[in-house]
């Protein structure tokens, strides 16, 4: 059973259909694993045993009756704790929502249930998805399964650590500036952010509305593609949701990539990249050449401005999205208020952590009287130019590659007191959110400490199929070099 937990979703599905194990047994095996390792890993905020077992029972019933099951039925999943699941605590890892019980399901939660995917529990994140290491969680520390003294990355640290640590086979996270791709890279698994609008945001606790997307994690490209298929689609509850049919991502994997044009982002392989990371990515590029792809160097000169643009737009939207946390209708309320003003200021001071306060302050400042043109409007203009840079690049190439991050997972506590330095880890991932294009991180090697290195692949908007195809071919070519964490 232990071994089965390390398998892919397709392998687990085979075992279920062959009745080697039942879905309930699989779920219980995961809970046993969680009991064993989560004290150390700290991935889970809460568990939903009743719901998960109910779903597993349903799967077993259908198998017994010989019914056709959705592709991921019975495959255990972890859900980032900023996604509403009715009847569970949805906390965004914040004190201000510590006891908030969702009165409704996010659209993706509905889809998970329709696909009979058992949701094991809610996993940890940086508070309100603001961070790159999950150290900003108000509740607990999540550790990297490859080295528990190191961060798993963020903000979807729990989603990545649970899958990498075999506490779940698949998971859902959210990505606003790299929050899926970065932890996937640090934890040696696959994680991707779809085209903006591909997956409904209804039920995702909003951080930056024009940048947020929910996306899948898996231990292989195929699992990730299957999960994306299950959660994608137009949603009338979300006005930013794409009104287009969902392509069969999992069917696009095996096509030949001979002649594919792969653009290497020059600015992301320059100085500042750790040597092991550089080597691993260069080796990946060599591998692509072997597979018949054409390698072209691409320059994205505006890339360096993307951090500034991101931190104005994302914090401005966030400062607005978090105004609803006022202690009136739900969530934490201070016990010390003498009047309404104090109720607001103390509730929010008590309920929000440092990083959240910092971003609210920055965003409020950027939108305040006299500063809109200089900061917000300027950032929106630069955003358009950055997108146009990508459009120009994609005229020449099919996809773009780079390291997901200039370094591998860092020590817990080593960057937390320097916010700006923490922000710079996002340099590789942020621009994809600004442009709305899909991006993935998949493992491409290990550094001298054995920590995983992530290769990032970016595709044009709406072309996730191409993305999966290019990723799959690489993954299959280097299959034998993949390692497992020792946890």
């Amino acid at each position: 059973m232990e071994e089965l937990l390390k398998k892919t979703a397709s392998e687990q599905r085979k075992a279920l259909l062959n009745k080697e194990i039942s879905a309930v047994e699989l779920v219980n095996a995961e809970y046993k694993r969680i009991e064993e390792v989560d004290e150390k890993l700290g991935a889970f905020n809460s568990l939903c045993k009743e719901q998960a077992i109910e779903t597993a029972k349903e799967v077993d019933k259908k198998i017994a009756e010989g019914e056709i099951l959705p592709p991921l039925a019975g495959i255990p999943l972890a859900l980032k704790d900023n996604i509403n699941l009715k009847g569970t605590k949805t906390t965004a890892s914040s004190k201000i929502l510590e006891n908030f019980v969702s009165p409704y399901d996010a659209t993706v939660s509905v889809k998970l249930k329709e696909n009979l995917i058992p949701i094991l529990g809610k996993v940890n994140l940086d508070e309100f998805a603001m961070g790159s290491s999950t150290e900003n969680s108000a509740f607990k520390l999540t550790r990297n399964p490859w080295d528990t003294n190191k961060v798993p990355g963020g903000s979807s640290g729990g989603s990545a650590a649970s899958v990498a640590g075999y506490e779940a086979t698949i998971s859902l996270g959210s990505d606003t500036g790299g929050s899926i791709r970065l932890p996937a890279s640090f934890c040696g698994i696959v994680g991707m952010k779809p085209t903006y609008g591909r997956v409904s945001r209804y039920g995702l606790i909003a951080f930056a509305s024009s940048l947020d997307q929910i996306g899948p994690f898996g231990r292989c490209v195929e699992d990730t593609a299957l999960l994306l298929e299950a959660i994608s689609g137009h949603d009338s509850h979300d006005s930013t949701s794409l009104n287009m049919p969902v392509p069969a991502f999992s069917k696009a994997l095996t096509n030949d990539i001979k002649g594919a044009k792969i653009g290497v982002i020059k600015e992301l392989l320059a100085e500042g990249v750790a040597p092991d990371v550089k080597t691993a990515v260069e080796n990946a590029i060599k591998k692509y050449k072997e597979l018949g792809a054409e390698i072209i160097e691409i320059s994205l000169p505006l890339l360096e401005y993307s951090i500034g643009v991101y931190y104005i737009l994302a914090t401005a939207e966030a400062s607005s999205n978090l105004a609803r946390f006022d202690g009136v209708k739900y969530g934490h309320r201070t016990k010390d208020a003498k009047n309404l003003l104090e109720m607001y200021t103390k509730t929010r001071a008590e309920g929000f952590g440092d990083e959240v306060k910092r971003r609210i302050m920055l965003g409020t400042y950027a939108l305040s009287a006299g500063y809109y043109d200089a900061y917000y409007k300027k950032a929106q203009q630069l955003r358009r130019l950055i997108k146009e840079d990508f459009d120009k690049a994609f005229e020449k190439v099919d996809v773009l590659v780079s390291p997901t991050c200039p370094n591998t997972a860092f020590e817990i506590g080593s960057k937390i007191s320097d916010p700006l330095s923490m922000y710079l880890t996002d340099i590789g991932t942020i621009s994809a959110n600004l442009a709305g294009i899909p991006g993935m991180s998949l493992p491409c090697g290990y550094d001298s400490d054995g920590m995983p290195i992530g290769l990032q692949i970016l595709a044009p908007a709406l072309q996730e199929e191409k993305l999966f195809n290019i990723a799959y071919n690489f993954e299959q070519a280097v299959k034998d070099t993949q390692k497992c964490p020792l946890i």
Partner: protein
Amino acid sequence: MVSQAIRDKYEVVIGLEVHAQLKTKSKIFAPDSTEFGAEPNTHTSTITLGMPGVLPVLNKECVNMGILLGLALNCEIPSRCKFDRKQYFYPDLPKGYQISQYDQPICVNGYINIKGKKIGITRAHLEEDAGKLVHAGADGLAGSLYSLVDLNRAGTPLLEIVSEPDMRSSDEARAYMEELRNIVRYIGVCDGNLEEGSMRCDANVSVMPKGSDKFGTRAEIKNINSFSALQRAIEYEIDRQIEIVEEGGEVDQETRLWDDNQKVTKTMRSKEDANDYRYFPEPDLMPVEISREWVEEVRKKMPELPEAKRKRYESLGLSAYDANVMVEQMETALFYDKVLELGADYRITNNLLVGDITAFLKENNININQTKLTPEHLAELVNLISKGTISNNIAKKILPQMLENGTKPQEIIEKEGLSVISDENAIKELVEKVIAANPAQVQAYKNGKTNLMGFFVGQIMKETKGRANPQIINKLLGELLNK
């Protein structure tokens, strides 16, 4: 109170901001009901409450109504508009921001005519309403111990209509409001009820020396809950500002509240506390592109506007005054139109409607649609009068039954035998009878008291229960009395 002499030295400049609640079934960004009067917090949803993770979705009917009202106000409908967030903290604002329209509103550059003067309309935009606060523990806001929040109203669609500062008196302001109210009611987008709050009004008032071309500093007046309150508030504010200027002071740019009990305006917010709304484009909603085809589709459905109705009634022959009285009672005017369509005489119908029927409605505190009277029956009645089958007097007598029971006039006439008696012989008999029974009055008439004719007519009417044809009575009386 400022003297008229001093008042005459100044020009008053007034602009009005009106919020009209749109009569859609569901809210502008959430699917909860907009129905008024429900138990607190029963017409809400996860979206209205601003729960974590929810998103707004635009109600198409709000856009349709916005276009319709814009056209009725002679506005341009730009081909593109969008939504913005207006941010501030208040317990009746669940998200901590209001979704509104800042720089690309749905309507611009309109006007309406009042008493021959054009009042410009700068813009109209869509936004969502806030909830309601009940202050508990004392009376009114000051001194309350705590507040209770009801979010039923939160998210109700509003159209905010901003006029140009074109009004120069409280009369003009009132006329503007009254016409705006008529328009929104006639096109069916809003109930236009100031007392109930389905239409709300803030006034911007300033004064400047007569002949000046530079407007004075304006104050915004809120909490105006009736047309007369509007006039009182403006008059008070004019005096207040003139007094300040006369004493060499400067009027503060501020928001003031009208207190209808004490009949004064009071400072509400000072400049320092003025809100920084930090507007930015709403990222959860897409822009709206309004094609010219869409505008024309809406225009086709435009009901007749009050101004056009007045003109049409005047062209039929009603006086301007009568035409306006009719238009001011919308349900009655629409009823009138139906009766006219059935071919009834315009004047007789008008007289009945604004006379006896309106009296009946007032007495019972209802509108015409709440009676059992139908346009068909009224048309029948009017036709019977036109043909001379019954007199006006008889018509008055049978109206109550038509209003209360919905009985056809013909039925009542036959059942109670009320048709006009036009048989000259029968009437001649009656005339002779009455003359014989009243010799003293006959003598007095012959001696010159010719106004006694009315007495004789009355006697005959009494005998015939009002049914005798008055012309025939007069003719025969004239003949027999003057013999």
